[in-house]
């Protein structure tokens, strides 16, 4: 699903954020991307989301070289990817329902299809009873779950999460990870960027460790 081939990213012609990164993530696989702050995790995610282009090497997602995409094609590609942030980045003016429906509206789903999908997504994150609420009245954990519902509502084949448990307590973090595990069992490819060792060690998934822009380790949890 995700393929990095000798990828390097240099900013301003001198600051090397990524250097010779090689890895493949099979469809339906879940992996953690770990490393200290500034190690290059976010740059790697931005490359996957098409916000940056590699200075050298190739980034492929579902067989498509992302450097060949631009404009409308890039937008269409992003519609097939789910994204979860550390800060759920919800729209305060919209209800939970409308926040979750946002990707569907952007993707041009019919109004008859939207309620079914939103209901299913909210039910998956146990927030069916909060559909009409405004995000500001929800707790941090609930807001993060709304963010997750928004990321999965259009049933993406790839889910990218950037520090999804960064603002949550251990119990909520574990709950969010359980959700990711469920999505992975449904066939979604998941890449979770995190620097929380406890989260990574609690689950038996592949770990990609990045340090100073280089991939220094790629293996299962037990190998680390």
């Amino acid at each position: 699903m995700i393929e990095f081939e000798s990828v390097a990213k240099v900013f301003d012609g001198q600051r090397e954020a990524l250097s010779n990164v090689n890895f493949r993530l099979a469809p339906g696989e879940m992996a953690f991307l770990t490393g200290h702050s500034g190690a290059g995790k976010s740059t790697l995610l931005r490359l996957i989301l098409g916000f940056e282009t590699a200075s050298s090497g190739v980034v492929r997602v579902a067989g498509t070289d992302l450097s060949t995409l631009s404009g409308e094609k890039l937008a269409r590609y992003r519609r097939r990817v789910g994204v979860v942030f550390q800060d759920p980045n919800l729209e305060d003016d919209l209800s939970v329902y409308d926040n979750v429906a946002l990707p569907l509206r952007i993707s041009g789903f019919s109004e008859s299809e939207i309620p079914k999908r939103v209901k299913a997504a909210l039910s998956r994150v146990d927030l069916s009873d909060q559909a009409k609420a405004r995000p500001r009245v929800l707790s941090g954990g609930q807001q993060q779950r709304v963010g997750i519902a928004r990321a999965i509502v259009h049933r993406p084949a790839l889910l990218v999460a950037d520090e999804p448990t960064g603002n949550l307590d251990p119990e909520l973090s574990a709950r969010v990870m359980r959700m990711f595990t469920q999505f992975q069992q449904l066939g979604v490819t998941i890449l979770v960027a995190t620097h929380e060792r406890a989260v990574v060690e609690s689950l038996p998934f592949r770990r990609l460790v990045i340090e100073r822009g280089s991939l220094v380790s790629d293996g299962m949890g037990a190998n680390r």
Partner: protein
Amino acid sequence: MNRWILDHTQAIADAWKRTSDRFTQFIVLVCLLGILLAIPGWLAQIWIGMASLVPKDAVRSEAIVFLKKDLDVEARIDLERLLSEMPWVDEIMFVPRSAALEQLSSQDGLESIAELKNNNPLPDALRLKFTMHGVEASENEIIEKLTSDRRVLSLRYYPSTRIQYASLVEMLGFLGVGLSLLTIIGVLMAVFLVAAADVVDDRRRIELYTLLGASRRFIKRPYLYRATILGVLAGLIACLVITLLNEVLSSVLALSLKAIDTRLSNFPMDGRILIGVASIAVFTSWVGAERAVSRRLKALH
């Protein structure tokens, strides 16, 4: 409902929400742009209003075409017919030399020339009144053409008041157009800055929408609708200001002018100006916002 209609309805709702969030700023901007646009609009109203009240004689030139002495009647009639068929000729009158002599002899101090009746030195003439709707050069071309005609002895040309003041009027016209362009650039810049500031304020939201796969067109839509609302309201304000100015000034001018010409009792408002000003308001707002949002989105992406 059709997805397209829903998307646009949503964009209009978003635009309205943005407007109501910054209502005071929006109203100030609408009034500012409206007043700014009213300036060229009002100038145009004065221009067109005055032009419509200019007496016909002020735009009509006159020429006395002296015919060659040995010209036979047929050739003269042929020339007269040819000239009368010209679209710019308002009036053509044949003045026989006997009539010219009588007229001259009736004038003060010229009685003695009546004695020349049997040996009249004057040529026959055609008195031509014409109105060109073009510029001075067109009238000159006509005069040159007539002068070079083999049937014409000579010609005396009395240009219209409009032609005499053409260069002054042209200069004033350029000034008006220049002022209008400056105003339009001012409106464009104001809308550009406001729209660019809106995009900076909404940076977080725009990044989210981009991540979710929204196209630039989708993201731009609310800003363009907001600019359109701004343009429509600014256009309305401008039309209102122009109409009010016209009412007030026309009544003041009418007091002095209606004695000269009854048509000058009021300056009718020209609908084309109102439509033009409103269209320019919407167009410039739209273009200003489009450019600003496109540039900002390009920088953000």
